């Protein structure tokens, strides 16, 4: 197993080895450079950090617990599984860690308007939440198809005072929402801060989002030592853009432990209907950075497919691409059916309704735990709660019945 010296990536231009960088229209370059400067300066100030940490504690409810899922471990007769309970974070997922960080930064930069893209609506809700808390204006771009599928989150964003901007281009899903958010940003860049929802996008987003999310791993590391006296043998997290995974993995980077990133295999890699960018994609440039992408022979981006809207994205954060190449993190893919099964298992065995995204990580954890002795410890990032997915589960059940 390779260990990895943190702090050396990204370089000053935002490159994670061959990945990352800044691939944006010139109109945005100055904003991105300004953001980088502001982040480097303000982001490291004591005042900013203490304000951010206070919000994480008193508003988000951090630290989130690390819960020993004994019945799940017993069920597979294998390793001990601990769940990092990001599902308990305010607004229902890890996304809030990042949106609060970016919104605070925006305010320090004097920008009073936030925009964001959203797929499942989780990042949109988290951004709208941060905007409401800090009294900022907020617009959320969301594909028409996702608006239809995720009605409850649309309503939540509106209740929080955000304007939801329907995107009808492309397939009306996350990729299109991000396209449209970038278009809007080009026009409004002077007073508007673009809150990107994962460790994707142009530098400094992948760096910044990872740093706002690394609290997950910092806490988990302290907690598992407290609870067991040992470091875990393995970390598992789902990978859409990759922010919850980076958040968990990063603080363990120099520890000699295995890490597994779980992508969405959708209806199966072989069907082409998946979102397994690292597993089955190739090198490309999308939404401002170079990484693995799903694309055709001509470099046209393909639509991703996953039952989990938050993983349904044809790109992935550049740091993951590097970690894959280095062999530091092992990437696997779990399909819709496996995720649904894990979803139900966690409901029934532990009384926890996970987000479908997180259910992918749980599915892999069950596979890994089965192969390992009870003395092994696996920490799984339970990135969010499943309330947003109830309709999807219901319609899957109905499909099942009809068939």
């Amino acid at each position, binding site marked *: 197993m390779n260990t990895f010296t943190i702090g050396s990536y990204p370089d000053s*231009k935002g490159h994670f080895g061959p990945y990352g*960088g*800044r*691939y*944006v*229209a*010139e*109109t*945005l*370059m*100055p*904003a991105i450079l300004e953001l980088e400067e502001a982040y480097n300066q303000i982001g490291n100030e004591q005042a900013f950090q203490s304000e951010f940490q206070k919000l994480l504690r008193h508003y988000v409810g951090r630290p989130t617990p690390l819960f020993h899922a004994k019945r799940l471990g017993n069920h597979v007769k294998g390793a001990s599984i601990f769940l990092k309970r990001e599902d308990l974070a305010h607004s229902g997922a890890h996304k809030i860690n990042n949106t609060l960080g970016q919104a605070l930064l925006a305010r320090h930069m004097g920008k009073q308007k936030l925009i964001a893209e959203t797929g499942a609506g989780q990042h949109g809700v988290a951004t709208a939440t941060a905007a409401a808390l800090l009294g900022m204006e907020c617009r959320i771009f969301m594909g028409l198809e996702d608006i239809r599928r995720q009605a409850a989150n649309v309503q939540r964003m509106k209740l929080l005072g955000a304007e939801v901007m329907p995107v009808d*281009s*492309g397939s009306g899903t996350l*990729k299109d929402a991000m*396209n449209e958010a*970038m*278009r809007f940003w*080009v*026009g*409004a*860049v*002077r007073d508007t801060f673009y809150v990107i929802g994962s460790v994707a996008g142009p530098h400094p987003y992948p760096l910044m989002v990872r740093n706002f999310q690394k609290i997950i791993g910092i806490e988990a590391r302290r907690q598992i030592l407290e609870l067991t006296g040992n470091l875990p043998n393995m970390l598992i997290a789902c990978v859409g853009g990759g922010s919850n995974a980076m958040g968990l993995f990063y603080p363990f980077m120099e520890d000699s432990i295995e890490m597994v990133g779980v992508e969405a295999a959708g209806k199966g890699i072989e069907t082409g209907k998946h979102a397994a960018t690292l597993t089955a994609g190739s*090198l*490309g*440039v*999308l*939404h*401002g950075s*170079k990484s693995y*992408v799903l*694309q055709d*022979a*001509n*470099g*046209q*981006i*393909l639509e991703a497919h996953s039952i989990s809207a938050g993983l349904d994205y044809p790109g992935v954060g550049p740091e993951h691409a590097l970690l894959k190449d280095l062999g530091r993190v092992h990437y696997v893919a779990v399909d819709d059916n496996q995720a649904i099964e894990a979803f139900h298992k966690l409901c029934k065995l532990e009384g926890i309704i996970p987000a479908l995204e997180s259910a992918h990580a749980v599915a892999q954890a069950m596979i890994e735990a089965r192969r390992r002795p009870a003395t092994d410890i696996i920490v799984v990032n339970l990135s969010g709660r499943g309330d947003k997915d109830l309709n999807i589960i219901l319609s899957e059940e109905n499909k099942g019945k009809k068939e």
Partner: protein
Amino acid sequence: MNRIDSTFKTLKKKKEKALVGFVTAGDPNIEESLRIIEAMIDAGLDILELGVPFSDPTADGPVIQRSSARTLKQGVNIAVVFEMTRKLRKKTDIPIIVFSYYNPIFSYGISAFYNDALASEVDGMLVVDLPPEESMEMTSCWSTNELSLIRLIAPTTPTERMARIAQSASGFLYFVSKTGVTGSDGLDSKEIDDKIKTLHSITQLPVCVGFGISTAADVKSIASFADGVVVGSAFERLIEINLDQPNLPTILAEKVHRLKCSTKTTSV
């Protein structure tokens, strides 16, 4: 001297400004697209900007988004675009600039792209999402300076950065008239004028202005201080609303003709 430089030199002599016309390659289909482009050139177009369609055109407004989608359905890709430029080269000598997002180029292969571009007698490249910070990867294999790299300057670009960009540019500088995507409307010519003055003080390169220029009046006002105007969405909009018309080439040619007239600053 390459075609771009000589075009600007010639126009200067004629006291005209360059009319740079953008169309998405292969819109509405490859044959008709060639006919449209030839008609536009015949009507006086000075420089052709030929767009490679991309699935995720984040810098483009709805009109060019739709034209990209139409041409992707036609199977247009970089190879097709090069085939088109080779055909066009048989009939015209005006500069041809290929406009693209970076990913199709990256996917095509960077040296293959360079070699094939030269072989297809392309004169310049404009890669909208490839800022100078990242362009070394692409240009490092450009062994000659036969291919110009057109650089964008935005209203948000600080002066000091303008200078740095200008240094690595060739052909001409493309000044983006406003913050926004292609096809947005509302021009502030006073503001643009100021920026162009700054640019002219920084660089010897000709400066063309694009984004949101659609009428003869727009062209006239911009042409009074810039070295060229770029019109794109206005042409694509014409194609789009006349998709089923047999005389599309004529319609576009007429538009070119009208706009071209407005670039003749002597007539001001």
